């Protein structure tokens, strides 16, 4: 048994998007970095819809695409599908501003990508320790100077610890950086199925010219049966990723079983034909922090920084989480480097981390959207009335042949007001605008 102390310049907890990024940045500047990952391998515990955003990836590795990253299809068509009980209105955009080189977003599968992303950090010199769970912190005269793990002789020491433990931020809570557990009104449970289908069937059924084209769709309406939540559809190379997320308190009130809500979505008349004869490759579930600003812990204290889902850095409306984690991971890494240059790891020095993030989209957007999760909670009709109205309105509009249009518009108008009085509907719209602008 070796017994000398395990000392590093930086310890990162979690080898996900934020963790491996922070480690790569710190190691690149010559620091001795250890990343402690609880999964069998980095990526084993990570799960998402979902798409990665090119701007964040190339910001960390300018030669990102030369490194042959394991990505699925580029996102060449994206937008909203408004599902009614038995129909859909598709509002998607392709070409034009979406048609960039490289494309702005790529669909990915986290097990493979996160492992690769951690290997890039290892190449920078970071030392990844898998299969090890961080259970507590080590203190020296009141200041964090390392972590305890669940392995015998499991203590590791470093003047800076960057917590990237994900949405279940038990360590962040233990350190008192936040005074509550995950909020049930500001957190969603998402369940997903990855269904394998021959690429040519995916292309034919979704109208994609070839396998070098892909889709990232936010699905609203019938998918969440009126509960506050969102569905999604992503195209992997030869598989479709279909899932639905519902806020925890809404899920509990509904008494629904998540896998049955998902099955109902998969059996929707518009969705079912897309996955016909597909074979389920994997089912999974994961929490998504949607509280953003309102559930964000203190981002730093003496010797400690918090980044990624652990810091509620997710903007649910725009499906932005991984890019926020990568950007925050980078800034945390840089803050650790600066602290080492100064040889001072106090909260004051580390506060540069939050200052930087405040100037970037990460804290700006989260602040702007701080009312969004409350808005969605109090305006469930955006999840069922308006999508259904949209379907009826356009459905009537495009089958109103040979009928006086005056009556047609009256019927369309009545199909709104019969569901939601006009004044209230206008009020909803204004409320949406305010939640989006953040006033």
């Amino acid at each position, binding site marked *: 048994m070796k017994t000398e102390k395990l000392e590093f310049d930086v310890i990162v907890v979690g080898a996900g998007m934020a963790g491996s990024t922070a480690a790569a940045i710190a190691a690149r500047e010559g620091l001795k970095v250890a990343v402690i990952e609880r999964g069998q391998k980095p990526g084993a515990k990570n799960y998402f819809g979902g798409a990665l955003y090119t701007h964040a990836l190339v910001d960390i590795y300018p030669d990102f695409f030369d490194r042959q990253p394991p990505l699925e299809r580029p996102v060449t068509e994206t937008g909203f599908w408004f599902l009614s009980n038995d129909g859909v209105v598709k509002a998607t955009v392709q070409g034009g501003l979406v048609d960039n080189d490289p494309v702005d977003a790529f669909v990915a599968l986290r097990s493979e990508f996160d492992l690769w992303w951690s290997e890039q950090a290892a190449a920078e010199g970071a030392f990844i*320790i898998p299969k*090890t769970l961080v259970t507590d912190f080590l203190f020296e005269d009141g200041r964090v100077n390392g972590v305890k793990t669940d392995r015998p002789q499991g203590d*590791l020491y470093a003047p800076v610890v960057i917590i990237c433990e994900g949405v279940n931020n038990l360590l962040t809570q233990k350190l008192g950086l936040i005074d509550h557990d995950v909020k049930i009104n500001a957190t969603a449970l998402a369940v997903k199925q990855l269904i394998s289908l021959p690429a040519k069937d995916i292309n034919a059924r979704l109208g994609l010219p070839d396998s070098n084209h892909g889709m990232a769709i936010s699905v609203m309406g019938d998918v969440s049966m009126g509960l506050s939540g969102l569905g999604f559809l992503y195209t992997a190379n030869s598989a479709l990723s279909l899932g639905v997320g519902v806020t925890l308190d809404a899920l509990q009130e509904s008494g629904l079983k998540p896998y049955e809500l998902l099955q109902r979505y998969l059996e929707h008349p518009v969705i079912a034909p897309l996955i016909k004869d597909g074979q389920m490759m994997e089912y999974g579930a994961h929490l998504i922090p949607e509280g953003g600003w309102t559930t964000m812990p203190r981002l730093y204290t003496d010797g400690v920084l918090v980044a990624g889902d652990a810091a509620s850095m997710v903007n649910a409306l725009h499906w932005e989480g991984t890019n926020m984690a990568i950007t925050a991971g980078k800034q945390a890494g840089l803050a650790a480097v600066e602290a080492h240059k100064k040889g001072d790891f106090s909260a004051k020095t580390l506060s540069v981390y939050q200052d930087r993030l405040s100037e970037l989209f990460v804290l700006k957007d989260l602040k702007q959207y701080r009312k969004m999760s409350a808005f969605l909670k109090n305006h469930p009709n955006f999840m069922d009335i308006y999508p259904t109205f949209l379907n009826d309105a356009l459905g009537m509009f495009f089958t109103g042949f040979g009928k006086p249009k005056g009556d047609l518009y009256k019927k369309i108008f009545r199909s709104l007001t019969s569901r939601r009085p006009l004044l209230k509907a206008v009020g909803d719209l204004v409320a949406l605008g305010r939640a989006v602008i953040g006033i």
Partner: protein
Amino acid sequence: MIHLLVSVKQVPDTTNIRIDPETGSMIRKGVPAILNPYDAHAVASAAEWKRKLGGKITVITMGPPAAEEALQECIEMGADRGILISDRAFAGSDTLATSYVLAEAIRKIHEEDPIDMIFFGKQAIDGDTAQVGPGAAIRLGMPLITYAVDIQEINKEEGFALIERKTESGREIIKTTLPAVLTTEKSIAEIPYAALPDLIYSLKYKPENWSAEEPLMYDINQIGLNGSPTMVAKSGSPEAHEPAETISVEEEGIAGVVENTLNKMLSNISVASLWEELK
């Protein structure tokens, strides 16, 4: 001080297999490769005896470069030296060729650093043939004890060991001279939760790489396809039967369903004859 050797194998995790309906062959993508569970327990047993008597453990594996991960896991559990025997010339080896490759490697290690006990997991969960251990033992001319469930004693000075093995009819205590070859059941030892320094050591450990020529020149007629008398003539997925007649408790209520079930069951000729004897 004893020298223990464990022969391990990296296998696809057969509990998670997906078969390609057209080709009938296994879909490799997304199937995690793991250290063969029986071998993991064999290493754990060797680690226990290393702690008791002092000494070292060598682990060897024959497989593709990725099998290095399996060796790392053994180092984590307490092994000291890992040897990966990998070469394209070995591709297609059946159990006869495999036992030749492993036995010759063990012989070479034994010559340089005498081994007291050699462990094989009872079988590999992908092939389940349980032939490689016995094959290697006979090639090395060493006594073989299969299905070992417990090692009661290893006495290097007097050159014997007491091994408990399990058979259908009961349990045997075997006394064997050393060195001996064991194939082990899972109950031989529990897998330890490694100390952090051991895990870190294993992450940095680079196994030695042996090929078909270096440091041992293998006889090409005994390895790979030409060293393998058996070959797969054809393979496919098992034919599916159409689902049987089912009756649901929800539809007919518990008493009705059971009544109906027993009537159907007892009207079957072979079951009926049983029922007559029973009454």
